[in-house]
């Protein structure tokens, strides 16, 4: 370039130019051009597969997540999880470098396993890949067999692994691949024909809200159902501060996970994040294996509880029925603050499905729904939810779009609030509307990942956050003469 371009003077954008562009990027014209782009993705809603895989790894007892790839990849996943949870996220890597591209990653993997076992004494190491080994074609299965043969890892030591290339799918697919691998590894020879341990396998899916996990467990307890929450991160990412650091503070007990194929029933609450895992379950067991919508909002929670009730032959607990009544009470009392309000939301398909359902129940409008990566089938599934309610009429689903698209949508066809992760905060600033922080990642507020949004209590929590956010806005933006004691 220094050859091709003459030496020019330094230029500065004039205030007029800046003002013009400031206005232009809010225009219909800009929106059209913005939606015409085919190649560049700007402010995406999705991360890559290994993040989901690592989340799964943290969800099992004594398990060390192991990134087969460069150490930089591991640092990114760890940081991402730690920033959201404000908790440690112990993980190691093969620390592959350029010579890995030439010789493959087997040596690094073997050395890494040896060190990790000695240093951190994990009960299981869950291996997943980042880009490099996927491109150079590392054969993890062979490497692991070789490691066992070489005595680096004991023959019966659990070493699940998943291929999670970042250039394929998103974090939810890495979640799926790793979960399936962990379960098939642990339960390999543990299936006992005819055995029914009476328990429920519950799969929350890629869910970074520790409060949700605790709610699942509490609900099952109220129902008197023994549950194995698979990939249970609730303690892993919400552990006590008591003066002792523990690299593995929680997770699904390995023996429980190993018994998963002997469960009375299996229920996944994120259809799209568990496709492969569910397929595997169905192949492996004759016990009921089902997928239901995430229990966000009243009707989804009703369905969830009724399914449990039916599968386990127990009535819905009276305490939960009372909770339902209190949630409906709260929703009724506050309906006037949400009714017909327009929302923009984004996230994974299952999260969106749940939030759409909740908003429609409130008479609110999920007006712009941005799903970053999803097939036509996913699109149809979400569209059907909007079509079901009069409050979904005129609402638009935007498949495979990003937050820069959403910015254009919000500036040209406004909404009252955004619901999603911290990454949307720049839109809220430009649009002057509140952001209800739900989902992953939340990088700029504390403890919100501890506040459940599933179940009846979750519905109250969502409602509280949204309604009070609007009331805050009213009090803040109204003239003196409309500043009132009651709202």
């Amino acid at each position, binding site marked *: 370039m220094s050859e091709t371009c003459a030496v020019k003077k330094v*230029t500065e954008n004039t205030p007029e130019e800046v003002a013009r562009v400031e206005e232009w990027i809010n225009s219909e014209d800009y929106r059209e051009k913005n939606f015409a782009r085919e190649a*560049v993705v*700007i402010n995406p809603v999705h991360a*890559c597969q290994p*993040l989901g895989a690592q989340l799964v790894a943290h969800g099992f007892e004594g398990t060390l997540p192991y990134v087969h790839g460069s150490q930089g990849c591991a*640092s990114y996943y760890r940081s991402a999880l730690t920033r959201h949870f404000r908790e440690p996220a112990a993980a*190691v890597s093969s620390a592959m470098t350029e010579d890995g591209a030439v010789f493959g990653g087997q040596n690094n993997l073997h050395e890494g396993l*040896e060190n990790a076992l000695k240093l951190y004494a994990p009960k299981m190491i869950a291996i997943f890949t980042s880009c490099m080994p996927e*491109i150079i074609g590392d054969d993890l299965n062979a490497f692991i067999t070789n490691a066992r043969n070489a005595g680096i890892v004991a023959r019966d030591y659990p070493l699940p692994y998943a291929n999670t290339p970042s250039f394929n799918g998103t974090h939810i697919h890495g979640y799926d691949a790793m979960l399936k691998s962990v379960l098939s590894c642990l339960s390999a020879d543990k299936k006992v024909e005819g055995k029914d341990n009476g328990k429920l396998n519950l799969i929350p899916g890629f869910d970074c809200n520790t409060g949700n996990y605790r709610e699942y467990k509490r609900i099952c307890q109220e129902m008197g159902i023994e549950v194995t929450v698979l990939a249970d991160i609730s303690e892993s990412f919400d552990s006590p501060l008591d003066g002792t650091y523990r690299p593995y503070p929680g997770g699904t007990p390995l023996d429980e996970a190993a018994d998963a194929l002997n469960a009375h029933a299996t229920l996944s609450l994120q259809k799209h994040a568990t496709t492969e895992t569910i397929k595997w379950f169905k192949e492996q067991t004759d016990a009921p294996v089902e997928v239901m919508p995430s229990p966000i909002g009243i009707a989804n929670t009703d369905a969830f509880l009724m399914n449990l009730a039916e599968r386990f032959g127990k009535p819905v607990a009276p305490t939960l029925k009372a909770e339902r009544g209190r949630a409906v009470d709260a929703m009724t009392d506050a309906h006037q603050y949400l009714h017909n309000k327009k929302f923009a939301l984004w996230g994974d398909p299952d999260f969106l499905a749940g939030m759409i359902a909740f908003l429609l129940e409130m008479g609110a409008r999920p007006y712009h729904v941005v799903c970053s990566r999803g097939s036509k089938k996913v699109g149809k599934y979400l569209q059907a939810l909007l079509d079901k309610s009069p409050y979904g009429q005129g609402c638009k689903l935007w498949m495979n779009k990003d937050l820069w698209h959403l910015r254009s949508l919000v500036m040209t066809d406004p909404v009252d609030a955004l619901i999603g992760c911290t990454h949307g905060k720049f839109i809220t600033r430009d649009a002057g509307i509140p952001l209800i922080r739900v989902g992953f990642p939340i990088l700029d507020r504390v403890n919100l990942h501890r506040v459940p949004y599933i179940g009846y209590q979750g519905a109250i929590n969502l409602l509280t956050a949204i309604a009070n956010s609007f009331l805050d806005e009213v009090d803040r933006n109204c003239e003196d003469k409309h500043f009132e004691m009651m709202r």
Partner: protein
Amino acid sequence: MDKDHTAVKVPLDGIQKQTTEELIDRTLELYPEKARNKRAPHMAANDPGVQGCSVKSNRKTVPGVMSARGCAYAGAKGVVWGPIRDMTHVSHGPVGCGYYSWGTRRNLVDGHQGVDVFSAMQFTSDFQEKDVVYGGDKKLAVICREIRELFPLAKGISVLSECPVGLIGDDINAVAKKSCQELNLPVIPCNCEGFRGVSQSLGHHISNDSIRDFVIGTREFDDEPGPYDIALIGDYNIGGDAWASRKILEELGLRVRAIWTGDGQIEHIAATHQVKLNLIHCYRSMNYMAKVMEERYGIPWMEFNFFGPTKIAASLRAIAARFDRTIQDNAEKIIEKYTPMMQAIVDEYRPRLEGKRALLFVGGLRPRHTIGAYEDLGLEIVGTGYEFAHNDDYERTYEEMARGTLIFDDASEIELEKWAREYKVDLVGSGIKEKYVFQKAGIPFRQMHSWDYSGPYHGYEGFPVFARDIDMAINSPTWGLVKAPF
């Protein structure tokens, strides 16, 4: 820099070369043999002035240990390019790398995101399987066109390669060259694939090389160069650091023509060859270009340290010594003006911090540069280390530390834990991944990459913030709650 402060420091109570060496031995025992041998050269008891005391650095990370290191891409995106405000930085490859590095480095910029600045945005080519199979070059050309259309005020595009790009043999340099001509806009390729090198450090070097090859000398300032023209190099404006630094330099009478790269403007960077002196704060990440400018344009450069009043004063005098009497007088005036204010801060916080011990593990310049600021507050640094330093960093570190203290390289988390525990430190200053590990153990912690969302820490503006934060971290009454009484 002024060498007054390089006298060997007073040893710390209870910390001798021997005790530290014993600690190192105990630490190494944690490892299997091979890893032990690899790690051993990376830690030493400090013995400033003695030939042969040296910590090995810039080597491959040991697989399977919990390293804090990032990769070359991280060094290129997060450090060098990311802070340049008026370019769009394309994370070229799969979505993840750009996603994880999005908005997480606090390199503040002045402007309106998406209009005239873009650094809080995440541009990615979001490679899919087909891009890996068929190559991403065509997509990249389209990306550049789309950016040109949607962001007319962007002054350039950087293309930061992620791992697959290099592995599949794409030629981003050719695409960049073509796009540059087609769009009449700088499109700068940076082959910073994460697998290159051993840490983010190579990413800095590669980025410096890209600037050398594609940026420097391509612009000239609109007005005449002056005798006090300088560039501020290696200040990334974390939490407003560069603004705090710039303020003092301007008060000194210097004209800051470009900042590399905090709140950076690419055309100013491109014209830096016109300045009279390059002032380098973060030597590690930017020394390459300073040396290039010295060789190619004869611009001298010097290091300085704007952490804490002692180091600021020394640096101001050293910088002023490169200029005329006016500047030198200004330096004394500034020091005189700020000394009482800084003393008030010291008087407020030092009684609460005197004798507290800290362990540092950061990147770039901070493991050595911040020591003076801690010492101004009465803290003692029992150990310090770098994520991705080179030999020249360690050479600059030994004399800043007391004899017998611990110096280390690319520490793994388990090592840090052991050291913090055995030294009974009152504070660990490190990164986000380490933060909660130590807090769980009941040890106060500050993030020393991001200033824990506080800052600035540079300059006279920064020291009161730093002092307040260190005090708050160590003396928060929440630490009294850690142990349940039952």
